[in-house]
């Protein structure tokens, strides 16, 4: 039993972060109808923000704090310059954001080089969990993921901005007629999605390989979470992340990593077959 809980913890600590990336993707897709293929690169920019800030000031924490702001700003620019002109043209946005991803990757390669970069571990201590030493940083990640999910939930469901954003999704014209500045809401939401990816990249940086193409595998798995959980609801994304992250960790412990990956993929295929809208997705009206 202890082992199951430990493995669940393993899965959830990174699932929290995965949820953060997927939530950003879910916000831009669910709210704006934009499939953002540059989302992985925003994750990568978060890690590079920590790298650069740490080099300049010696503080990893400052980098992690600044990352969502920096990447959120980059997201706002991308929305204003590229995505804004392409709303309602999903295939064009697909192509355009893919181009943005290539530009961002190459820009970072030119600026910082293509090599693997080091980010020091901000917490190196371990704490006992069920008599086993467990890295404190992973527990911090779990907490960070949960706090962010709650904050985003509050933002979308308990604030005026959230109401406006949800109104704009349901009917742009009517929302605009009611006095909602739809353009500003779009930019803010896209920027919010980018900021979440940036924060996730910053927090994950010390545990993965920091290089310009680090966003690619993350993009794939967060698309998965979004598809599995459904795009409309926050709870769906969280559930999707828990199933993918937690399921993989638990299955991986009882079998081996290769079988676990196959099992989780199969599970996802089954879920999509049975519930095409995702586990918690909205049924089409």
């Amino acid at each position, binding site marked *: 039993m202890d082992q199951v809980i430990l493995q669940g913890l393993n899965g959830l600590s990174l699932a929290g972060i995965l949820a953060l990336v997927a939530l950003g993707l879910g916000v831009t897709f669910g709210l704006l109808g934009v499939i953002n293929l540059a989302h992985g690169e925003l994750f990568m920019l978060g890690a590079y923000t920590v790298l650069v800030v740490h080099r300049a000031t010696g503080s990893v924490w400052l980098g992690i704090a600044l990352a969502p702001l920096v990447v959120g700003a980059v997201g706002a620019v991308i929305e204003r310059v590229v995505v804004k002109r392409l709303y309602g043209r999903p295939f064009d946005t697909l192509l355009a954001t893919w181009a943005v991803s290539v530009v961002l990757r190459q820009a970072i390669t030119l600026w910082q080089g293509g090599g*693997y970069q080091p980010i020091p571990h901000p917490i*190196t201590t371990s704490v006992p969990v069920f008599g086993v030493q467990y890295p404190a940083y992973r527990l911090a990640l779990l907490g960070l993921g949960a706090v962010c999910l709650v904050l985003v939930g509050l933002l979308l469901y308990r604030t005026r901005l959230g109401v406006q954003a949800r109104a704009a999704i349901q009917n742009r014209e009517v929302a605009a007629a009611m006095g909602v500045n739809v353009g500003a809401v779009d930019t803010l939401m896209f920027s919010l999605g980018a900021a979440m990816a940036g924060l996730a990249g910053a927090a994950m940086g010390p545990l993965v390989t920091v290089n310009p*193409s680090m966003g690619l595998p993350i993009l794939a798995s967060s698309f998965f979470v979004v598809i599995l959980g459904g795009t409309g609801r926050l709870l769906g994304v969280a559930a999707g992340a828990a199933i993918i992250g937690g399921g993989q*960790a638990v299955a991986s412990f009882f079998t081996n990593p290769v079988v676990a990956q196959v099992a989780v993929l199969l599970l996802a295929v089954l879920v999509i077959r049975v519930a095409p809208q995702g586990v918690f997705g909205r049924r089409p009206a």
Partner: protein
Amino acid sequence: MEGLSELRDEFMERLMSRREFMRRATALGLSLPAAAAFLAACQRERGEAGGEPIRMGALVPLSGVTEILGPPMRNNAMLAVEEINQAGGILGRRVDLLVEDTASDPDTAVEKARKLIRQDQVDVIVGVLTSAERWAVALSATIPAQMIYINPTYYEGGICDRYFFNVGALPNQQIEPFVPWLIEQKGVRTFYLGGSDYAWPRGSFEAVKRAAQAAGGQIVGEEYSPLGTSDFAPTLRRIADAKPDVIYPLYAGADGVTFLNQLINFGLHRESLVASSALSELVLPALPPEETVGWLASFEYFMSIDTPENKDFVRRYRERFGQKEIMDAIGESMYTAVYLYARGAEHARSLEKDAVVDGMLAVQFEDPKGTIRIDGETHCAFLNDYVAEISADTSLPPEERFEIVQTFEGIQPKQECLEEPPG
């Protein structure tokens, strides 16, 4: 320098005569017969001594999951070709290097190899990084075309063909000396093996198991993860439970750094020794310096090899590509691969394919990693194996922290021929 200007003059002269020919042909208005005559003239030129340059194709990963390993490979091939051309080329002919990106993908690698063979009509192909690419290129492109193909990467072995050569380490040159050395010198007994799920880690771990068991060691765990894994926690948990003396990771590309970063985060390096035949100059800079002290690596080449030849080589490399540039054993072996072809052709005094193959089997030359000669049976190089321990001096640049603690000299390559990749 004199030879170079002569070469240039000759080149210009031929260019002029070709242009004049074209002008006359067009002036005469005899388009078809003239074109045929022109082509025939070109054909004749191709056969002349000191004529057409030698074409060398280099397949390197410049994008995709292993892209970080590509630039040192390309740079080393470029450096060798430039040095050869500066010294007058091979048998008086200039060498043209054609670099192609494999995108770290076997299908793309095969496609590019076929393009080099059919369209560019190269004389020799060097390169590729992963075993998946290597087997695909050898079985689907170079062996059917009887193209000379020289592999630079240490790999699990098994490809046997008259036209296939290998200057990277085989398991018996990198793992078989290293594992017993660990058991005897470091007093370790139990090993945990973790690697990416494909031919190279699987084939290499077979060698680790054999070597460990023969020397009285014991394997307490062996497992594989898919390429592109971002969370190694389940594997690390199992390693923590198994409490091995040695953790021996063979994860490819970025996965290697991710695994080691998470291993450090779990604190397992304080319980077990980390030793690997994949811990290179490109991986170490991405890890926290104070955590890696005492880790062990085994390769046929390190930038820190303390010989005048190597020091001079590193100096030339950095003068050409930048003072902070680093490379790993695979990168350096591209330099060896280019020189093997050049020395082979010079020894044969011919560019005819089979003569060059015999030449390559007969030559012996000095390389930054030691003396190179080819074993007639396996077509692989005799190599030194260097064991390096990561120095406690964290103020050194990462590539200088590989302190060579043991050298095994001139190990004969040994492998079993396979029809298809292992695993």
